[in-house]
Structure formats: structure tokens, C-alpha cells
């Protein structure tokens, strides 16, 4: 067996090891490459930027703990951007596992930076099962779906909720998601209740989102860690997404290298098989 044949049947565990090393290395030795902006990220940034100061927006935490690396930096950057414009933020989650807890932790952390007060500047509605029902229900009355906030305080005791009763009182829905709930925000809430929806999604979902973006059903899009890094750059507050981009570069190069090696091996073998036939 020559080297090319060996390469073709290489034990996949070697690939796993290479992958691990290619990420470990840049995590220990940080480099920093420049980050370029994409128009769809700018569109989202501008949509938020163009809203009047102190308008009410909804920020969803529709993601599981498993996608934190991509989505959490988006939420953090979005919170910083919105509070810099002194907006009132309502958060909720359509994901039972993690979503509401993450919302609680992240909003309170960032609120400290901006001296924002719970109940006045932001409210965390938490989670309620059956997101289709939740999305329809919020159109008529928030209180009917969420009688209390995440911690159990009745909405009537929260000053912010006094003049926020339904979608009509909100200007924008900023949906950070790692799953199909964002499709429903678009196909139900945007389609039936006519409120702009912008979203930050994991990289795997982004390509599908482009078709909603083109159709004007979606206002702006962040795709994966790169999207998060772009938003961090626009907001001007660097976070873990920006740091992660180095490791990202290394890993992409590794995969491209693997694809090239795989193909060279494939052609060498095929040529050899042809030679043998003749």
C-alpha cells in the first residue's frame, strides 16, 4: 500500500486530532486578523440604529445552551447597542432548556454596565410552552400569555409593562435563535402582525435565512460567529466572537488542506487504477 492509498483510508481519528490542535493553538497564542463587514449585518445594525431613541424592542433568546459560542456574543452586542440608544427591552425565550436562564444572566450582566433597572428598562418574560400559541397570543395581549415575568412578578407590578401591551407597542423584534423558531417569527409574526423582524442566527441556519432576507420578510441578518464578530465591531465592543475568529481561520485552512490532500490522493489512485488496467 503506497502513501496515497493510505491517505484515502486514513483513520478518521487523525483528522479529529489535527482539528483539536488547530483550535488549541490559536486559543493559546492570540493573533487577530481584521474583520470585514457584510451588508446584511450592516442592515441589521442600521435598522436598530434608525429606531427612535428609547423605543420598545423585543429581544428573543431562542437558543439552547449548546449554541452559546455563536449566539451569546450576538445577544451581548445587541444589548449594548440598544441600551446605548436607551431603548426599553423585553426579552423572552421560546426554548425551555437554557434560554430563559441565559436571558436572565446576560441581561443583568450588561445592565450593570449601563445602570439599567429591571422592570423599568428591561423585562424578562421567560418561557412558555408552545411557541406558535405564544406568538399569536402576544399580538392580542402579552399579559394573557405571560401573567408574570420569569421570576414570578405579576406584569402589572412592572412599570415598563404599563404601556406595553402587545406587538403594537413595539418597534422591532430582534430575534437571536439557533433553531426553527425564527421561521415562525417570520412566517407568523412578521407576516400576520406586520412588525419588522431582524435576526442573528447560527451559521448553519444563515443560508436559509437569505431567502427571507431577499423577500423582505427579514430585516438584517447575522450569520454565526463571524456575524457576531461583525456586530461587535460595529458596536465597538470586542467580545469572544472577535477572539474566536483566529481559531476559526486556522480550522478552515485545515479543512481546505484536508480536502486538497483527499482529492490529490483520489486522483493518484484513479490514475494508478487506470495504469493497472492498461
Amino acid at each position, binding site marked *: 500500500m503506497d502513501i496515497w492509498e493510505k491517505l484515502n483510508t486514513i483513520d478518521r481519528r487523525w483528522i479529529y486530532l489535527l482539528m483539536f490542535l488547530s483550535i488549541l493553538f490559536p486559543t493559546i497564542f492570540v493573533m487577530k486578523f481584521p474583520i470585514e463587514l457584510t451588508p446584511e449585518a450592516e442592515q441589521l445594525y442600521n435598522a436598530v440604529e434608525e429606531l427612535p431613541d428609547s423605543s420598545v424592542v423585543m429581544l428573543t433568546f431562542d437558543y439552547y445552551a449548546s449554541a452559546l459560542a455563536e449566539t451569546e456574543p450576538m445577544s451581548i452586542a445587541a444589548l449594548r447597542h440598544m441600551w446605548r440608544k436607551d431603548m426599553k427591552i423585553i426579552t423572552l425565550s421560546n426554548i425551555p432548556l437554557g434560554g430563559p436562564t441565559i436571558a436572565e444572566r446576560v441581561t443583568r450582566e450588561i445592565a450593570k454596565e449601563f445602570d439599567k433597572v429591571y422592570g423599568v428598562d428591561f423585562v424578562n418574560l421567560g418561557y412558555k410552552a408552545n411557541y406558535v400559541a405564544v406568538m399569536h397570543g402576544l399580538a392580542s395581549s402579552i399579559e394573557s400569555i405571560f401573567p408574570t415575568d420569569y421570576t414570578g412578578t405579576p406584569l402589572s407590578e412592572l412599570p415598563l409593562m404599563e404601556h406595553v401591551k402587545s406587538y403594537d407597542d413595539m418597534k422591532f423584534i430582534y430575534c437571536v435563535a439557533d433553531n*426553527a423558531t425564527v421561521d415562525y417569527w417570520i412566517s407568523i409574526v412578521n407576516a400576520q402582525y406586520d412588525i419588522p423582524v431582524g435576526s442573528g442566527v447560527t451559521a*448553519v441556519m444563515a443560508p436559509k435565512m437569505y431567502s427571507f432576507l431577499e423577500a423582505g420578510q427579514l430585516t438584517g441578518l447575522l450569520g454565526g460567529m463571524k456575524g457576531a464578530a461583525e456586530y461587535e465591531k460595529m458596536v465597538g465592543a470586542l467580545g469572544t466572537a472577535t477572539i474566536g475568529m483566529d481559531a476559526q481561520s486556522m480550522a478552515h485552512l485545515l479543512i481546505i488542506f484536508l480536502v486538497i490532500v483527499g482529492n490529490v490522493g483520489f486522483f493518484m489512485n484513479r490514475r494508478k487504477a487506470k495504469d493497472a488496467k492498461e
Partner: protein
Amino acid sequence: MRKDIDIFSIVKKLQAIRTLPVILLTITMSLILNSQAFAQDFGDSVFILPRMTVLILLLVFSSAVLLYTKWAKAGKKLFIRKIAGVDAVEDAVGRATEMGKPVLFIPGIADVEDIETIAGIAILGRVARVTAQYETPLLVPVRYPMVLAASQEVVEGAYAEMGKADSYDKDTVRYVAGEQFAFTATVNGMMMRERPAANIYMGGFFAESLLLAETGNAAGAIQIAGTARPEQLPFFVAACDFTLMGEELYAASSYLSKEPLLLGGLKGQDFVKVLIIIAILIGTLLVTFDIGDWYTNLFDVP
């Protein structure tokens, strides 16, 4: 051939008691007419008029499906082209039988609220018939209790239909964890330990698609996947032997059953597809010559 009970045959039976539909109709009508809003102001305040397009589309679509179904019932032959991945399902089960190894079937990891899951469960019914016939062990891990209930019905029904009710194991379909990755971890373990010869994934899949398919590949199983989620298709295509893409998933259960009644739905779908293509072409032409506002407005439904 199964007994034909659908909503039409039920209605037909009910007609024997002719009064019943009349009563139902009267009650409904009087309820609607008595509602104040209706009496005061018929029209836009009650009925959402701009949604008329959806109603038209719904009627066209339903009539196409029903018409083809009627023809199919009447014995008209309906041609459906071969779908490679679907044929592979039967082959894969056959291979597992020869090797004396189990077949692993996952009806997606979405709940029954997702229509893809129902498509997956329908395919499971066809697969279970084959495994029942050859007494090939079948493993069906599911992630939601509702899917558990429905899948159990399907598999039990299939075994009963093949006259193998005795060899049906109640734990063929089993609930495995609630969480996506806990489910994946368990199924991955299952693949490495029980070594199924064929892995069939049909339904709604998310990020675990590649985790499952790569592990299955490492374990050396034949793999056939089907999902309507465009975002997961590339991974199944890369790691599985056959992949049913999008619509093919929905077509598969009709195709596998070869029942004319179900094929009618498929034909109706194709008919509407042609209408859609024509609608797009007309729309593009009108928009290009800048005279299409009235036309595009029809499609812009609130």
C-alpha cells in the same frame, strides 16, 4: 387492501341519518349569524378579505388533490417516476435481514407538531411491515412522547397486519431522553453497541444530523436519510448513501405504500407545482415590463 374509511365515506354513512348534517349546518350558521358583529357589518370586519388569495389557493390545491384521488380510486393508472432513495429503503432492510442485524429507524427529532415527523412516521409504517415480514429486529428511538405514541401505533399496526403480532416487542419504539443532544449521545452509543446494518433517518432533523450520520458511517451501516430542512440536507448528502430531499420525503410514504389513494395526493401536488411555475413566469414577465403591481399584490397577503 385496507378498508376505505375516510371522511367522505363517513359522511356518506351519516347521510343515512339525513337530519344530522342539516342540524349541524343549522347550528353553525345560526351561531355565525347571531354573532353581533356579523349582523352589524358583514364584510371586512368579520372576514379578513385580503386573505382571499389563500382561500383560492387552498381551494385549487384541495380540489387538485381530491380530483386525482378520485381518479385513483376509480382505477385510473397514475404514473410516478422512480425515486432512487425510496427504492434504497427496501434494499437496506433486505440487507439487514441477510446479515441478521437490526434496522435503526429515527422518525426525526421534532415533535408531531411538525408535519415532517408525521411523514417520517408514515414511512416507519411501511418499513415496519417489511421488518415484521422477515422478523428483522427494529430499533426506533424517539425524542417526544407524542411521537412515541404515534410510532407505537404504527409499528404495532404493521406487525398485526403482517400476522406477526406475537413477535412485536413493546419496546421496539422507545423514548430516549428529551433533549436533542442527550438523544444523540444515546443513539450514537446504540449504533456502536448494537451495530445496526441499516440506519434510516426520516423526518425533521437539526444539528445532530451529521453527528448521527458520521457515527453511523463509522459503524459501517447503510444509511438513508430524508428531511425537508434545506439547512440539514448538505450533511446528509455528504454522509449518507441516499438522501430524500425536501418534497421527496413527503412523496416517500405514498410511493412506498403504492396505494392509489395516497398517490393521488402526490399528483395533485405536482399539478399545483406546474401552476406555481406558470405563476412565477407570468409574474416575472409582468414585473419586467413594469405592469405587474395588481398581480404581485395578489400574492402579498397579510
